[in-house]
C-alpha cells in the first residue's frame, strides 16, 4: 500500500467529517449546477453537441501524430518555436533555460493545469525568477501556498471572508466587508505591477489547432491576454491531447467547453495565437515557444480501450458532479488532477502502483459519465484502472486472500449457503455479546460508520425450500 494511498484515505475521512467544508462546496457547486443547466439549454440539442465533440476529439487522438506535426509546421512557419517534451523534467529544463538565457526576472502565468502538473513555477524560481499566478483563483491559492483545489475553479473551497483575511495578512489590504468587487480590485493592483515588469508570460492551451497552427485560449479575467501579449517572451505549455484538427472545430468546442465548465455561452475571452509579433504588428511578444508535453500521456495510447481518456478537454464537469469529490474536496487526492478524470489520468500517466488506489475513491455512481461533454466512459475507465492496479500487484495481501476465498465460496451453492449462515450466526453472537460496532466486530469495516445490518433468521434459499413452491 503506497504512502499516497494511506494519506488519501486519512485526508478523505477528515474532510468527510468537516461539515463547514461540505457546506461551502455544496453552495459553490450548486451555483455551478444551476448555471450549467441554463448553459445546456442554449443548445438546440445538447446530446448531438456531445456526440459531435466526441467525434472531433476521437479523430484528433486517432491521428495524434499527424495533427501535432501539422500544428508544428504551421506555427513554426510564422516564427514560433516548438519543443517536444517527453516528460516534466525536459519541459521544466527547457523553460528554465529560456529564463536564464534571456535574463528573465519576473514571470506572469495565466491559468494552466499542465504547468501545475510539471511543477513549473518551482523550477523557474530555482532558476532565479519570481513567478506570479495572475488568474484570480490561482493567485489566491498561490498566496496560501496551496495547489489548486479544482482544475477550473482553483479557490472553490474558500469563502470571500477567508480571502479577505488572506489579503489582509499577505497583501496588507483591508476590505472589512469582504465585498467581492473590492477584493478583486486589491488583486488587480498587485497583479498590474507584475504584468508591467514581467519579461516572460506563460500560458496553457485549451486547444491546439492543427490546420491553422494556432493556440486557442478560453479565459474569463483578461489576465490571459495580458500574459500572452505584454511580456517579451510567451511560452505555451500544452499536453499533446489538446490538439484538434480544424479551426472550424472551435465553433462547437469553445461553447461546449464553456457550457460544461461554467455554464457560460462562451468564455469572456476567446483568444487565438498564431505566432510571435509580426514586423507590422504594434504589440505581442518577440518570441513564442510552444512546449508540447507528453509526460505519460502516450501510455494511454498503448491500449485501444484507454485512448478515449485523451479526449478530455478539462472542463471539470466530472469533478463537480462527483459525490465523492463533493465530500472530500480537491486537496485530499494529493495530485494535480483530482476527481474522476484525475483518478484515471494520474495512475495511467504517472504510476499505477503508486496512484491506482485513487480509482477506488468512487461509488461507481456513473454521474460523471452522464455529464462528460466528450463522452468519456469514466466509470468504465475507473474499473479498468482497478483491474490493472490489482494486476500490478500492490493490493493488500489480505484483500487478495479475501477475494480468492470469495471465489471459493461462490463457486459452490452449498459453500455459499454455509458462508451466509456463518455470517448471520456470527453477527448474532457479536450482538449478544455487545461487541457490535466495536473493533472486535468482524463486520467493523461496515459498522464503524453504520448501525449493524439486519440478521434474518433464515436466508431466502432456506425459505424457498420450506415455503417457496406453491
Amino acid at each position: 500500500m503506497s504512502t499516497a494511498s494511506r494519506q488519501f484515505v486519512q485526508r478523505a475521512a477528515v474532510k468527510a467529517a468537516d461539515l463547514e467544508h461540505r457546506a461551502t462546496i455544496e453552495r459553490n457547486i450548486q451555483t455551478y449546477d444551476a448555471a450549467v443547466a441554463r448553459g445546456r439549454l442554449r443548445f438546440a440539442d445538447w446530446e448531438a453537441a456531445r456526440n459531435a465533440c466526441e467525434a472531433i476529439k476521437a479523430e484528433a487522438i486517432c491521428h495524434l501524430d499527424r495533427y501535432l506535426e501539422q500544428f508544428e509546421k504551421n506555427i513554426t512557419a510564422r516564427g514560433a518555436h516548438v519543443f517536444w517534451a517527453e516528460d516534466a523534467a525536459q519541459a521544466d529544463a527547457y523553460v528554465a533555460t529560456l529564463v536564464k538565457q534571456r535574463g528573465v526576472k519576473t514571470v506572469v502565468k495565466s491559468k494552466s493545469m499542465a504547468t501545475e502538473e510539471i511543477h513549473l513555477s518551482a523550477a523557474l524560481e530555482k532558476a532565479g525568477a519570481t513567478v506570479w499566478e495572475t488568474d484570480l483563483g490561482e493567485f489566491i491559492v498561490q498566496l496560501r501556498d496551496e495547489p489548486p483545489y479544482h482544475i477550473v475553479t482553483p479557490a472553490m473551497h474558500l469563502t470571500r471572508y477567508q480571502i479577505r483575511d488572506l489579503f489582509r495578512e499577505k497583501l496588507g489590504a483591508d476590505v472589512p466587508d469582504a465585498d467581492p468587487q473590492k477584493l478583486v480590485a486589491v488583486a488587480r493592483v498587485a497583479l498590474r505591477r507584475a504584468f508591467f515588469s514581467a519579461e516572460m508570460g506563460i500560458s496553457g492551451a485549451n486547444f491546439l489547432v492543427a490546420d491553422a497552427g494556432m493556440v486557442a485560449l478560453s479565459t474569463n479575467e483578461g489576465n490571459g491576454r495580458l500574459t500572452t501579449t505584454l511580456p517579451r517572451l510567451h511560452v505555451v505549455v500544452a499536453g499533446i491531447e489538446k490538439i484538434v484538427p480544424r479551426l472550424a472545430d472551435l465553433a462547437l468546442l469553445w461553447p461546449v467547453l464553456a457550457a460544461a465548465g461554467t455554464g457560460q455561452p462562451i468564455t469572456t475571452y476567446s483568444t487565438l495565437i498564431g505566432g510571435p509579433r509580426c514586423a507590422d504588428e504594434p504589440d505581442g511578444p518577440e518570441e513564442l515557444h510552444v512546449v508540447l508535453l507528453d509526460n505519460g500521456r502516450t501510455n494511454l495510447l498503448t491500449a485501444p480501450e484507454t485512448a478515449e481518456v485523451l479526449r478530455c478537454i478539462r472542463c471539470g464537469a466530472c469533478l463537480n458532479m462527483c459525490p465523492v469529490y463533493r465530500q472530500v474536496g480537491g486537496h485530499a487526492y494529493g495530485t494535480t488532477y483530482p476527481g474522476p478524470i484525475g483518478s484515471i489520468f494520474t495512475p495511467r500517466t504517472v504510476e499505477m502502483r503508486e496512484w491506482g488506489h485513487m480509482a477506488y475513491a468512487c461509488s461507481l455512481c456513473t454521474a460523471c459519465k452522464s455529464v462528460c461533454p466528450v463522452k468519456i466512459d469514466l466509470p468504465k475507465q475507473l474499473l479498468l484502472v482497478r483491474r490493472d492496479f490489482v494486476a500490478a500487484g500492490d493490493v493488500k495481501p489480505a484483500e487478495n486472500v479475501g477475494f480468492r476465498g470469495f471465489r471459493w465460496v461462490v463457486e459452490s451453492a452449498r459453500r455459499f449457503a454455509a458462508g451466509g449462515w456463518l455470517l448471520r450466526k456470527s453477527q448474532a453472537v457479536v450482538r449478544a455479546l455487545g461487541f457490535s460496532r466495536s473493533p472486535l466486530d468482524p463486520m467493523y469495516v461496515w459498522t464503524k460508520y453504520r448501525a449493524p445490518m439486519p440478521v434474518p433468521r433464515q436466508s431466502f434459499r432456506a425459505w424457498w425450500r420450506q415455503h417457496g413452491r406453491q
Partner: protein
Amino acid sequence: MTAMPRKVALFVPCFVDQVVPQAAVDALTVLRRIGCEVIFPADQTCCGQPAFNSGHWSEARPCAERFVRVFGDSECVVAPSGSCVSMVRTHYPDLLPVGPLRDDAIALGQRTYELTEFLVRIAGVNDVGASFPHSVTYHASCHATRELGIYREPLELLAHVRGLELRPLPAEGDCCGFGGVFSVKFGAVSAAMGDTKLANVDSTGAEYVTSIDPSCLMHLEGVIGATKRKVRPIYLGSILAQQQEAAQ
C-alpha cells in the same frame, strides 16, 4: 399481456439472499400475483460484482460463467435489484473474453430484468393491486437509472399504490454512498454521502424512503441507525407486495 413470459426465473442477489431475504420474498409475491410462474434456480450464488468492482476480474469471471450456466435456459430472469442486473447486462460483456460464452451472456443480459422494469415494460402492468397508506419518497439508484435507463417504471407503479403519498426527493438521482467495496474502503466518505442523501430525505418529511435497490437501502438503514433518524427504508417491491393492511 398475452406476450408476457409466464415463466420467470428469480435471480436473488447474494446479499438479498443472506441479509435481506424479505426483498426476494416480496418480489416473488408480486410476480405470482400478476400471474407468473416463478422458479428459483438453487445453484445460483453471486453475480460477481463485488470482485469485478474491486478489480479482481479473474475472481469475478467464474461468477459470470456460473450465472450463464444457471440461467442460460431461462426465458426470462427477474431480480429485486438494479445494480446486479446491470452487472449482468452492462458489465459481463467487458468481463468475458470474446467467444460463445460471452455471446450467451450478452443474449441473457437482454432478457434479465430488474423487477419494476419487468412489471412495466415486459408484463405491461403498472397496478399490482398494492395498498400502502403512507408517505414515501423515492431514491433513484445509480445503476438502475444511468446504466439500465429505469426512470419512470418505479414511479408509475408507486402512483398506482392505494393510499400512498409520494413526496418528491430533492436530488433524487444523487448517489446514496453505498458503492459496494467503496462503502468499506472509504467508510467515512460513504457514510457522509449517506448523510447528505438522508438530509434530502428528511426535507420531504416522508415516513419511508424507498428504492428498487435493496443495497442502497441496506446502507441507508445503517446510516439512519447511526445518525438516529426516524425515516424507515423499504424496498419498493415490498411496498408492491402489501395489500389491504387489515388483511395482513
